[in-house]
């Protein structure tokens, strides 16, 4: 028989998992809206963002209640901190998904500017980072969380290349500017989503390893 407090900790974890699956889905739909020029997917992302916002508040309420009533220690106290931060990062990823969805709708109303360059590839990398960070959280594997962190650099590099190519398109013709700016915004949103996935991975590492590796702090040799 598990302690009642274990049920409350499980409830916090499950709320986070629900939030992460909705966030993962919204990010996928937003990218699909762009790639497939499908406004219906974009509308779902924008409409359902509020559900993720509410879950963020719900996680924080459960965390503060548990802290006030149970005085968590050691791995439980780390879970409190990590849960609150992970939910904050998930909510930010969902916000980036709505940005992508809105820009996708704007882009879908005009003829395609050019092939989407490396934006879909960026999106795949960011989604995998998020997926792996959540898998590491569920499975309690800090090694997996640690291995996610360097992958953010790859997304950053792709974003720089995308921005460079879009700048070139803008310089070719003023007619390209609006669409290029929208695509640049999409690429930046994906890059930010990857940053948040990295933050989640760092929180998962802290949760299971007890070491803070943010900003290269306390990195194990």
């Amino acid at each position, binding site marked *: 028989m598990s*302690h009642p*407090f274990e049920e409350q900790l499980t409830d916090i974890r499950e709320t986070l998992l629900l939030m992460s699956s909705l966030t993962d889905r919204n990010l996928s739909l937003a990218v699909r809206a762009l790639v497939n020029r499908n406004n219906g997917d974009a509308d779902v992302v924008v409409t359902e963002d509020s559900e993720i916002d509410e879950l963020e508040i719900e996680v924080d309420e459960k965390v503060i209640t548990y802290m006030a009533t149970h*005085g*968590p*220690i*050691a*791995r*439980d*106290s*780390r879970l409190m901190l990590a849960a609150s931060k992970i939910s904050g990062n998930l909510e930010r990823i969902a916000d980036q998904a709505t940005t992508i969805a809105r820009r996708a709708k704007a882009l879908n109303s005009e003829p395609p500017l050019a092939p989407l360059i490396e934006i879909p590839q960026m999106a795949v990398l960011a989604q995998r980072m998020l997926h792996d960070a959540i898998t590491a959280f569920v499975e309690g594997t800090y090694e997996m969380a640690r291995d996610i962190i360097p992958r953010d650099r790859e997304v950053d590099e792709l974003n720089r290349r995308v921005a460079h190519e879009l700048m070139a398109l803008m310089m070719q013709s003023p007619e390209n500017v609006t669409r290029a700016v929208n695509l640049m915004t999409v690429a930046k949103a994906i890059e930010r989503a990857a940053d948040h996935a990295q933050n989640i991975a760092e929180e998962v590492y802290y949760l299971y390893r*007890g*070491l803070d590796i943010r900003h290269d702090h306390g990195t194990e040799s």
Partner: protein
Amino acid sequence: MEQKTQTGFKSGVPFAESAGAARPGAHPTAIEVADLDFFYGSRQALHGINMTMPAGKVTAFIGPSGCGKSTLLRCFNRMNDLVPSAWIGSGSIRIHGIDINGPNIDPIELRKKVGMVFQKSNPFPKSIYENVVYGLKIQGRANRAVLDEVVERSLRQAALWDEVKDRLHNSALALSGGQQQRLCIARAIAVEPEVLLMDEPCSALDPIATSKVEELIFELKKRYTIVIVTHNMQQAGRCSDYTGFFFMGRLIELDRTEKIFTNPAERQTEDYITGRFG
């Protein structure tokens, strides 16, 4: 503040003479336990305990009932001498470098230097004033001016002076539970110990009285080395600099309290402090 006179645990022998070069300040370790095996009759209560407790710090002992933490605490002022079946199988305990179980050590002198506060407050059925000066009178110190000074200083250090200064000659038994416990702390520090042992000092107190005793511990560690046994994890976290976790007579882990309560090295420690066993 009155200068503390350092005396050893042998009757009438100055501390420096009995301890050699070991003096508080020059010796950052207050208590050193080495390979200690302790028995009640044939039952071994402590197994190979090795640990050091730094001077001027609070060390908390935690662990489930019967794990040996109070037994070890009572070893530090040889309170276990009063238990007929108790005996030390092997190992040593040094306080400020002195082997407290050495052949020339006087347990009475030791207890003057290693004071103790118990779970249940135990004021004598005398006045507040008489409770505080009791130890000094036993030592033969009867100068009224000196005793008055000690009473005020001890009660101030115990954060009780303002509450009782106008009724020093009233019965100590009329005080509240929290006040009685702080009176017992005042009584313990009146004889100027070097080490203060506390065996679950707040377990019978309400949260307000507990908070006062915890504030007091924070103040007292500036002057004394404190070892506290507690079942209250939050209290150990709040009050101590170092925490030792005991289980079945063994010291499982000793580390900075911050480390023990955020990321202990041993799974047993984490399971205990998070309430998953014990």
